[in-house]
């Protein structure tokens, strides 16, 4: 048995373990993260914390990051306050809704035990 935990883990982008969609209301963005497989969900709960997600969005200086868990859906919902530069009517961004933000989160690296690697999506 390999006791070296480092080699038991693979680092992959989040999109291999989960999918999601961004929504907006005013200056608030919500991003769902939905595990591709129930066995991957606990890893997401452990690694995608409000703190790690706030760090991922540090350039947008969120006023608050909340995480809501939906274990029956193997999903979580992140709500990021004041990350849309005022929202759809105020932002200067081409994507004033922040619709692409789910892909900023889905590109975040996560660590997955090698044993669970067959459950990951995509190449």
């Amino acid at each position, binding site marked *: 048995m390999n006791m070296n935990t480092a080699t038991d883990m693979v680092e992959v982008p989040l999109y291999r373990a989960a999918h999601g969609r961004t929504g907006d*209301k005013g200056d608030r963005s919500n991003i769902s993260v939905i595990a591709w497989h129930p066995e991957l969900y606990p890893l997401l709960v452990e690694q995608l914390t409000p703190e790690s997600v706030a760090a991922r969005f540090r350039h947008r200086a969120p006023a608050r990051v909340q995480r809501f868990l939906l274990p029956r859906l193997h999903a979580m*919902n992140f709500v990021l306050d004041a990350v849309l530069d005022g929202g*759809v*009517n*105020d932002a*200067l961004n081409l994507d004033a809704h922040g619709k692409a933000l789910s892909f900023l989160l889905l590109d975040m690296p996560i660590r997955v035990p090698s044993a669970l690697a067959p459950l990951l999506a995509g190449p």
Partner: protein
Amino acid sequence: MTTGRLKSAPMNAIAPPPLLIGCAAGFSGDRTDAAGPVVDTLIARLASGPAQQRAFLIFETLAERTLALAQLRRRDNPEAGYEPLLDAMLRPVLARCLAHGIRIVSNFGAANPRAAARHIARMARELGAAAPRIAVVEGDDLSGPEHRALLHETLGAQMEGLRIVSANAYIGAEPIAAALDAGAQIVVCGRVADPSLTVGPAMSHFGWHPDDWHRLGRATMAGHLLECGAQVCGGYFADPGYKDVPGLEAVGFPIAEIDAEGNCTIGKADATGGLVSEATVKEQLLYEVHDPSAYLTPDVVADIAEAEVKQQQGAEDRVALSGVRGHARPSHYKVNVCHEGGWLAEGEISYAGPRAEARARLAAEVLRQRLDGLALRVDLIGALSILGDDAGRMLADTPDTGLRDVRLRVAATHAERGQAERLAREVMALYTCGPAGGGGVRTALTPRLNTLSCLLPREAVPVRFELLGAEALA
């Protein structure tokens, strides 16, 4: 507005057949060929289903700024101000809906439901259909001078000096249900909450009381799944290699089957592309939701914390939603106030070939120095243009990677048109005064609309429906 609708749900041992609700638009500007397959499918289901089965078609065409734009059009033309695509969306299916008893509920009335109703009546005449019974739902529009004091009471100093374009309460399903109870075949609304377009028909059909929180909560989430049209059927979902969607070019629009308890099964129009899967339903279920245990609508506080989503065995493109709960509705309506917000100026120029990125970055630096007094957003399209923040923190952290095809975009806003115009002129001047080889300048100057939100007590916003007679529809 009628109150105290005390009809109780039927107590028959045999469950009534589910109510069918198809959605043919998820926003203003959605595909106008969406309704045809939805209506064809509803007609086929009604033909093969039990005699008591009923079907509705809904169109959701309002977003946060759509109403303000509609008010601006109505200022120019008193007969305008409803959904500009109303004719294109409805004409292909109107006669068939009327012939097959499919009732229509929509917020495509926008800022002028009565004019929309007149347009629909005219369309029916032109199509040779019998005059439909059309109702309008009103009370949401608070933009008139008689409502100014009420808004001022709540918004206070924030309202000083603002030029208000629109003010609308997000009203609920009760007046829709009442209009249907009164015999309306078509209900034209302005700013009702999106899920209320589904809750209203369900309340009327099943006779639910307006404080039947669990059933209203379930129907609300059915409406939430429907309200963005194709988004629950594989639209806005595809990601090649990870989330493949068959036939995206012909993606179907959704049909919900809602049972007497409010639980629903989501499917899509027959002979269309797309897919309905647990993944598409989960993404749409959480779309624009904040706290999943408290999704606030004017009808109910819906709660999906314990919701479950299950692909139906042996049935393609059918997913059931269960476990939704509801809690007492909020005491206040949400109100959005849109006001004139100065000017947005944008300019773009492209650089290509060796050191293109360095030349684009130099052009941005020139603009920053020339446009003193404007807070400039800078994008390097091809390197970073969407994920970055307006203040440019992410761009500052993004090193020059030597891209050879880059489009520079700058944007700024200013209360005065003349100040905003400076940006357009400076981008244009890069042709002769900027870095080498810049081409393809485009500039745009757009009036802005800004939004304020507040809450108003329900009793301060009387809502009503009116079944329009022949005179009102002439």
